[in-house]
Structures are given as C-alpha cells and as structure tokens.
C-alpha cells in the first residue's frame, strides 16, 4: 500500500528540469563534442598521437555524452528505476556480447 502511494507522490513531485538546465547540458555536450573533434587534429594536440591516450579520452567523452543524454534529456534521472534497469540491461548485454564477438574476430589486435 504505502509503496504505491509513495511512488505516486514521488512522481507528482518530480519536476522536470527547467529549460535553462537543458540549455546548460546542451552547452556541455557541445563543448565535449568540440573536444572530441579536437582529437582529430593530432598535429595540434600532439598527445593524441599516443594511441591509448586518444582512445581513453574518446571513450570517456563518448560515454559522458551518452550518459548526459540518457540521464537528462531522456529523464532517466527522474524516472522510475525499472526504466533504467531495462534500458541498461539492453546496453550492457549488447556491450558484452559484441565485445566478446569482436574479441573472437581479433578486432582489438
């Protein structure tokens, strides 16, 4: 009983972020994207010539961007955990299954 009512109350409470917050997040996303693109100019940012630095930074930025989109734009931050669970089930499953597949093909050398 209490669970449901609580849940109900919770949802009523959950105010979505204001437009201003969205714009802030979008700005961050834009900045990170710019940083991503910067890696392309290896001759300018020479440390990106080191492959592991390049890959780590690219993947970090990519995951960060994805995380922001999912959490803020798709409201997973406010929404019920069940959504998070079912979505990340798919994400994780896909990631592991395909990484194993790529390993089997020696894609990572």
């Amino acid at each position, binding site marked *: 009983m209490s*669970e449901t009512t609580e849940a109900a109350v919770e949802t009523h409470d959950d105010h979505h972020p204001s437009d201003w917050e969205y714009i802030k997040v979008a700005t961050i996303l834009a900045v990170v994207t710019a940083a991503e693109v910067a890696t392309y100019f290896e001759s300018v940012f020479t440390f990106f010539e080191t492959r592991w630095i390049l890959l780590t930074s690219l993947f970090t930025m990519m995951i960060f961007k994805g995380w922001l989109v999912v959490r803020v734009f798709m409201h997973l931050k406010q929404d019920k955990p069940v959504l998070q*669970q079912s979505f990340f089930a*798919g994400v994780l*499953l896909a990631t592991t299954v395909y990484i194993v597949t790529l390993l*089997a093909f020696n894609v990572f050398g």
Partner: protein
Amino acid sequence: MAIIEEPLALTSGEQHAERPLGVLTRPQANGSWKDWVSTVDHKKIGIMYGVAAMFFFLVGGLEALLIRTQLAFPESGFLSADVYNQIFTMHGVTMIFLFVMPFAAAFANYLIPLQIGARDVAFPRLNALSFWVWLSGAIFLNTSWIVGGGGADCGWFCYSPNSGITFSPTNGVDFYAIGLLITGIASLVSAVNLAVTCLNMRAPGMSLFRMPVLTWMLLVTQFLLAFALPVITVALLLLLFDRQFDSQFFDPEAGADPLLWQHLFWIFGHPEVYIIILPSFGIISEVIPAFSRKPIFGYSFMVFSGIAIGFMGWGVWAHHMFVSGIGPISVFAFSMATMFIAVPTGVKILNWLATMWGGKLNFSTAMLFAVGTVTMFTIGGLSGVTHSLAPADTQQTDTYYIVAHFHYVIFGGGVLGLFAGVYFWWPKVFGHLLDERRGKIHFWAMLIGFNLTFGPMHVLGLQGMSRRINTYSSGFGFEFWNLVATIGSYILGASVLYFLWNVYKSKKDAPNLPAPGPDPWDARSLEWSIPSPTPEHNFDEIPVIESQDDWWFRKYNIEDDGSVVRISSAEDAAQKGDAVGVHLPSPSFWPLVLAIGLPLIGYGLIFNLWLCVVGGLLTGGAIYAWVLEPVDDPDAGAHGHDDHRDGGDPDGELATVGAAGDDMEGED
C-alpha cells in the same frame, strides 16, 4: 504508429459510422468470422496462434516423415538430393519458427493475463498485429514451395556463403530471410507487449514474486525474444542485401568472413533454444504441483534459475562453432561457459522431482506428459553436456548425435511439455475435457514413438553418421538404426493423428458429459477461479492477491499442525462469469490489413519492386488508419468516464483496496 496506441476502446451494440481513411467500418462483435479477424481479445488470439501452430506442426511433421522415409534404407531414391535439402531446411525452420514458438505464444497470450489477473494484454491491437504478422510471415515462407522455386535449401542456420546467391540461386533463401524477418517483427512486438503486460498489468497484490512460475518463465522468454530477435534481424538483412543488392557481407572473395553470419546467427540461436524450452518448463511447473497435491518446491529457486538460464544463455553461443575455426581460446571459454548451464537447469529438474517427492501423484494425461518432459529433457540435457566438452564435440558436431540431442530437448522437453499444457488447459479454453483414456494412449504412443525415433540417433551419431545427408551407403553400419528410427517416426506420426482424433471425439462427446467446472484439476493459479471456458471479460471482478497460489488458498487452509482443510468448494469460491457492462477493447481490422502489406513488400523485393510500393502503401495506410481510428469507440461517451484501461488495475483499485501491488523499486 504503434507507440502512441492507447489500448482502449469499448464494444457496444451500436453501429457507428466512423471510418478511418474512409474504408472499413469499425468492426463490431457479432459472432461471425469477422470476430476472429478483427479481434483484439488475447484469448481468441491465443487460440488462433494455437490452431495455426498446430497446422504447421503437421506441415513440419509431414516434412519429418519424408526425411525419415528417405532415410529408412540406404541409397534410397525416394527424394532427390535437392528436394531433401529443401525438406530438412524447411522442417527445421517450420518446427522452430512456425510451430514451437507460436505454440508457446498461444499459451503466453491466453494465460499471462489470466494468471496475473488482467483483462487483456497491455496493447490488445498490437497483440492482434503480432498474430497476423506472424501468420502472414509463416504463409509467405511456405509459398516459396510454389512460387520461389522450392523451399530454402541452406539448412535452418543457413550458413554463408552456401546461402549466397551463387550457391543457392533459387529464391528459397530469399523467402527464408524475408519470412523470418516478418515473423521476427511479430515476435518482437509481442515480446514487448507481453513483457509490459507482466510488469504493468498485474492485479492488486500480485507482486512479481507471487506470479505463477509459468508467467515468470514466459516473462523471461519475452526478454530473451526482445533481445535476441534484433540480432537475427541484422543477420537476415545482411543476407538479404547480399542476395538482392550485391553487398559484400558474406563474399569470401571480397575479403568477407563467413564466421560473421555464424556469430550473429548463434547469438540469436542459442537464446532461441531457451526461448523454446522455458515456456515448457513453466507449463510443467503448473502441472506437476496440481497432480502431486503439493505446492511447487522452491518457488524462488525455480524463478531465479529460470532467470539465470536466461542470462547464461547469452554467453554460450559459440558452442555451435567449436570446429569452425574461432581459435582455441574462444573454444575453451565457450566450452566452460556452456557446461555451467547444467547447474540452473539441474536445479529445475531436481525441484520438480522434489515437488513430486512425497506427493500424491495422479497420473492424468497432463501429468504423464509433464513427467515425460522431465525425464526426456534430462536425457537430452545430459547429451548436451557431452557436446559442451569442446574436444569431444569435434567428433559429435554435425552428426546424428546432435540431432538426437536437440530432438530430446526440443521434442522431449519442449513439445511434450506443450502437450502437457494442452491437456491441462483444454477445459479452461474450450469448456470440455479432452478424453483422458485416449489422452493416455496418445501419450504412450508418443513417448514410445519418440524414443524409437530419436534414441537410435545417439547410436547413429556416435557411429559417425553425418546429419543433413540425403543418403548413406550400406556398409557403415547405419542400416538397422535408421530403419528403427523411421518406424518410430511413423508411430510418432500416428500418435499425432490420434491426438487430433481425440480433439475431435472429445468435442463431439462433450455435450453428453458433465461440464468440467471452473477448476477441474483442483489447481492453484488464478485462471481456475473463473468459469470454463473463460468468459470474454476474464474476471467479473479483478481479484486481490494475498499470497502466492492465491486461488488455492481460497479453497484450502493450512492448519497450524500442517494439515490441509477445505474452506470452500471451487464452485463456490470461483467467480460466476456473469458480470455485465465490463468494457473491453474494441476490435479493429487494421492489424490484419497492416500484416497483409508486409508479405507484399517481401514478394516485391524478390519479384518486382512495384509490389513493394503496393505493400508499402498498404502498410503505411494501415498505420495511419490505425492511429486515426479512435482509440475509444465513440460510444464510450455514452457511458460517461468509462475510459479506464482494460484489464490491469486502475489505480482506483489500488487506492481503494490498498493491498498495493508492488513497485519494481521495492523489489530490486
């Protein structure tokens, strides 16, 4: 645009003139065939799935008998190599995609809403869509016999490059690819639909961990489907693009790797085998307790092992590729992963035995089939374990030893279990029992035929008989057991025909026999608390669930000393099924229309792109009509604010009754 569907509308007697896109009047329930083609009732849809799947069982079985007839004697010329290759491919495809999966879907559709106390599934129209799309895909697939130059001839897993246009120039493989894409859409839609139903539509108090084991297994199955189908979708599309648009995915000359197909296929294919078996595991988890007079032993272990099987099933696909050259490390890793699936599966087997242990075993037909499932599956599972030893599998793979394994698990585990379900729920669905005496004959004939057919295949396989060969020479020692297997398959075929006879006779005799009443087996789950056959609205009142096996506890009480006393007869405790004014979702023609568009697109891809345009217009038009079709039949206005969602539990109930359902948060 399915996603903005509202699953709600009302039937009422009145005609009205709303015509989306100016065609097809909104169908009304009137008892004619139109009821069936426009229905959105999960029960009718379930029955249609069942009937259609049974039909394809006969088709697939006929193909099996042709295979067996050809193999009865060495050097037989009954079927040519070409025809034989088409037959065994279509046998595998038909049995798996057109029989077992939809037959399980029949149970899922019919029973999930009843077992969780809902009036329908979450999206009734999408449910109808799933069925019609599946059926159109199934028919499409089989029309390749007539218009495609024969069936697909590449084996059910259709390895590239043999499936490429160079090596399989007829259209069979195109039909295979497109047909499975279409049925895949159906299964994906229905998986999402049924998963949402389980998560969202439960009666008050029906927490996830009060759901019957069957519903649980079906839920796991839906997740497996939802995640596995996209993978084969991609594989099939790549194959289709290669064949139709000359892309280079599987052309070794261009540098492509045939292993890509194998990985994609088996990433889908292995979860698929658990998609086949889990519904059957669920069914016997309902049947065995009822006929042992005991609750299921270790409910939570049962549920968690089912979930564990679902998870582990994703990490073992390459055990089908031990000899394909994936490298020793991969082979080793997948071999190890595969072995340990025996553990959760073993838990299930032992829990069923423990359920029977000390129980009062009544060997009704359903129980016989359920026990047959447990034993035959164990044999098949154990031979599965011997395949998982990668070094040993290099001797076994692609021999009849594998054929023996998978028929023991699929037929012995899956199909026998589904038949247990047929006998068990028949009275609930049709309002009369299947004759028990004939049922038992059916069971024994099937069991003996089954073992005679597939038992010898263990021997044949270990003696080195390859699978997928249309002929074998004498002198390898294959003659005797092949003949036995063929005789066995005829017995099996006879048992299937005898089952159909039982269906016919039991229906004919039914009027002269006492009605079975709501709860003929003294069973435990909610569907037995309503009349047989199930009334159109399922529940007069949505029950409020207070425990696992709630229905049983409405009949019995367990005293402090552990003894059981009856507190109510089933008839008294059951609902009467006489409620009036319950609003049900409105029927619609659009799912059917939409479904007809898809095979047209398929034919178009193969024969003439203009047909694609026609199919595309039909599909697109149907989607728009669907969206425009008022969600609620306009008559709904007459009833005031009756636009509550069908089935499930409007929050009013939750609020008033207070035995609140659960939230996912609470459980994780």
